[in-house]
């Protein structure tokens, strides 16, 4: 589906860009300056909607018509100035930003009403617009300084939004971890761009880097790739750099969590693709193998830790880690295929990764917004205190169910299509001539399937315990449905999930267009689809989620009809739950989230190494009567145990040694300064 370029002129594109920036600007300024809190929220929301909507249209315009946009302003930044260029890859991510930005902005109108009086609504509104603005500009950055400037601003705006609820326990600590890890990544990115600039020419534009990359030594290229993987990986949340994600996403306001999980961590994916595929133009097979391995481990660890969580938002955060892993599996496979010249399969892998990006943004955004509604209604994130919400919050429950089904890759929703594409890319692994590399693919297939199954199990738990059965606490019993703005926000994303699932035949060609030309990939716009089908190359496989979805709908309508025609008994009586002879049913008799995950916890006990504390209080008269039982168990995540705790202890030890210099004497400090100064001068003079 394309629109001829003469219908959308470059002037239209520029105009859209102006509208986008103006929208965000009005939103931010309005939020900061208006008086009543209702106006503040309305200004922030409408500004963000205009801006994100313009971003979506701008991105779509590029994807559908191929019209690009280039802006160069020399005075704002030194050396090469502020440069923007919209190409296919950037346009795709712009669409993702817009797709998530509009519902999140709408949602925030209702959600931040609860913050009135407690936290600064102005800051939240302004930062929301600021974050969306930097995100939208980030994907168009065309030189290193612009990129880095926007990257830093994005991290900082995200930080300010994460620590909104600063008086809640754990928030500031989570913010601290976030800001520390994002800056470690930033340092890696600076080093990477320095290497890419080649050193001699002071040009930091991406065009110059592309040309320069061909002349870089292989060692330099490897270093650039590793730095990119580290820097962008820490933003995306790959294992072992993911520790900040399950800390920061739960404590942030829910629409911020949605935005962060849906878009901000995808900037890591964007950066990785931009540097590895576009600027460097691909590399040797071990690059792809490393990404594939990292992706597999990330996906598995993410889902395994998600299973053990009973904090709803922390569970969703770990699932974000898992899905980033899946995206990286697709990208890794693509890189490996590319290095062996199997271009069609490479494109398939990348398309799978990109499709999963937009899918994850929609269903994870939806799930976080749903979790936010639950938090808004019950005041708790703990699943063990929820239950029965499907009757009290029917719309939220429905939307959450759609999100849960989507993330479990159930057809005909969107999760299935992207996982299918990634699977097909992996299944093509037998074409690789080198058997040592090819053997990685079946393993990846197995791990991906396991991840997918565990994700489904986890979401049965998440939805089932939170929404079904009987309320487990007073708050859950008196929960109320979310306000209209929040419901509409969720509805938009639910529709997106359904649409992306039912119409892959139009999305896949667009993604093919995005990738055409990048890193030498061919134009695959018509290769992977056939009418309403999606297919793998060389006639390997074909599916049509569209037809399947249609079939399911027809059957769902047909079965009750047939049953009515056959005069099946249609009576239905509601009565007490079967109690095996007991009287009454209390919430204490229900399954809890912990008990639901117990079998899997046992299966993977070697990984989790749960600690257990059990104390039983016996009746003083007899050992056969128990007064109370106290059971507590905790799981420390693997990388916290193995990597971060020892690392932090080492840093503290070193700091204690360094503290010896700090004697408290002012004169000594001044002498340090003077001595260093003199030494520097001597060194400058004689060396």
């Amino acid at each position: 589906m394309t629109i001829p370029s003469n219908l959308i002129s470059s002037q239209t594109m520029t105009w859209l860009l102006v509208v986008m920036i103006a929208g965000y600007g009005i939103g931010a300024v309005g939020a900061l300056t208006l008086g009543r809190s209702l106006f503040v929220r309305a200004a922030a929301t409408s500004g963000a909607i205009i801006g994100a909507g313009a971003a979506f249209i701008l991105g779509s315009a590029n994807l559908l018509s191929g019209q690009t946009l280039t802006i160069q302003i020399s005075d704002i930044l030194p050396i090469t100035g502020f440069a923007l260029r919209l190409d296919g890859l950037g346009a795709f991510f712009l669409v993702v930003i817009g797709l998530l930005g509009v519902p999140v902005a709408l949602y925030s109108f209702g959600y931040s009403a609860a913050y009135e009086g407690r936290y600064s609504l102005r800051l939240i509104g302004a930062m929301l617009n600021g974050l969306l603005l930097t995100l939208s500009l980030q994907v168009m950055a065309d030189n290193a300084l612009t990129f880095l400037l926007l990257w830093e601003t994005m991290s900082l705006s995200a930080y300010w939004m994460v620590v909104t609820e600063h008086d809640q326990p754990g928030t500031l600590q989570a913010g601290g971890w976030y800001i520390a890890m994002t800056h470690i990544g930033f340092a890696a990115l600076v080093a990477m761009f320095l290497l890419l600039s080649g050193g001699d020419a002071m040009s930091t534009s991406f065009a110059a880097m592309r040309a320069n990359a061909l002349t870089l030594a292989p060692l330099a290229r490897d270093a650039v790739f590793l730095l990119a993987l580290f820097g962008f990986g820490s933003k995306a949340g790959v294992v072992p750099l993911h520790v900040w994600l399950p800390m920061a996403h739960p404590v942030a306001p829910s629409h911020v969590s949605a935005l962060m999980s849906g878009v901000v961590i995808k900037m890591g994916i964007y950066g990785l693709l931009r540097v590895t595929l576009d600027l460097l133009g691909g590399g040797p097979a071990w690059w792809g193998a490393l990404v594939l391995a990292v992706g597999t481990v990330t996906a598995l660890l993410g889902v395994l830790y998600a299973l053990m969580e009973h904090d709803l938002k922390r569970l969703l955060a770990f699932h974000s880690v898992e899905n980033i892993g899946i995206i990286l599996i697709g990208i890794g496979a693509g890189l490996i295929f590319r290095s062996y010249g199997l271009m069609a399969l490479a494109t398939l892998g990348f398309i799978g990764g990109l499709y999963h990006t937009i899918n994850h943004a929609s269903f994870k955004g939806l799930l976080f917004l749903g979790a936010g509604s639950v938090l808004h209604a019950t005041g708790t994130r703990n699943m063990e205190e929820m239950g029965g919400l499907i009757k009290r919050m029917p719309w939220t429950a429905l939307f959450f169910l759609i999100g849960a089904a989507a993330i479990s890759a159930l057809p005909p929703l969107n999760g299935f299509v992207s996982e299918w594409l990634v699977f097909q890319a992996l299944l093509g692994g037998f074409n690789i001539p080198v058997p040592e590399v090819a053997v990685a693919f079946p393993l990846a297939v197995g791990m991906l399937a396991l991840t997918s199954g565990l994700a489904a199990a986890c979401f049965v738990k998440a939805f089932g315990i939170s929404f079904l059965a009987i309320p487990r606490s007073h708050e859950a019993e008196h929960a109320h449905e979310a306000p209209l703005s929040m419901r509409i926000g969720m509805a938009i994303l639910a529709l997106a999930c359904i649409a992306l699932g039912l119409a892959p035949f139009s999305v896949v060609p667009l993604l093919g267009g995005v990738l055409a030309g990048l890193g030498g990939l061919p134009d695959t716009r018509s290769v992977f689809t056939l009418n309403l089908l999606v297919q793998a190359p060389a006639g390997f496989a074909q599916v049509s989620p569209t037809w399947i979805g249609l079939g399911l709908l027809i059957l769902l309508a047909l079965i009750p009809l047939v049953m009515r025609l056959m005069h099946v008994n249609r009576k239905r009586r509601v009565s007490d739950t079967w109690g095996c002879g007991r009287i009454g049913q209390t919430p204490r008799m229900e399954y809890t989230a912990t008990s639901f995950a117990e079998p899997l916890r046992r299966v993977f006990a070697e990984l989790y190494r749960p600690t257990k504390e059990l104390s039983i209080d016996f009746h003083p008269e007899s050992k056969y009567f128990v007064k109370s039982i106290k059971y507590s168990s905790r799981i420390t995540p693997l990388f916290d145990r193995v990597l971060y705790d020892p690392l932090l202890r080492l840093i503290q030890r070193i700091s204690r040694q360094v503290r010896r210099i700090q004697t408290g004497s002012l004169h000594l400090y001044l002498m340090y300064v003077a001595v260093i100064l003199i030494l520097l001068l001597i060194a400058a003079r004689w060396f």
Partner: protein
Amino acid sequence: MNDALFSQLSTLGSSVILLYGFTLLWRKSLHAYTVAFQWQSIALTFLFLIIGYFGHDVELYYVAGFLFVLKVLILPRYLGKLEQRFPGERESRPYVNVATSLVVAGLLVLLAYAITRPLVLVSDLPTRGGLPLAVGLIFVGLFVIITRKKALTQIVGFLVMENGIALLAALGTYGIPLIIELGVFLDVLMGFLVMQVFVYHIHDTFESIDVDQLNELRH
């Protein structure tokens, strides 16, 4: 002819300025320090006028004017007030005693000569002879700050170092753009005011302006 005279005058002026800096190491009373700083600044003003005249740079006249107002009139007045507030304070037992200080100061000036030698060789300005002296003054000011215990001495040491930097700028490049010079003056004034406040605090906390007492704050 003109150049030779200029050269002589500038070197003479720089030496005078440096010698006043040595006074800080030799004398022990705060009043003496204030006076030394005041005369040093007067000499510096004259030097600026000379350089402005011989170097045909009108801006330096303005700088000289500002310098006079700030460092000869305003700052010594504040210093005098501080002196009155804490009468009888003397630098009785510095970390490095007077004799050794003077020797070290001499060595520092020699070091300054060694370091600035390439600069002097490269420069073709008539004022280049005074460059080592200016750098030496900076070192001396730094040395005063490090080895003297009383807060007031350290403040004066800082101001003397500041004079050294201004001298370096004047000799090396016939001064710096006016707007930057003004900025520097503002910084000096602000820094001085802040330090003044600190001195009051230190006195309130420790009943003395002995900076060494700050060690107590460590734990």
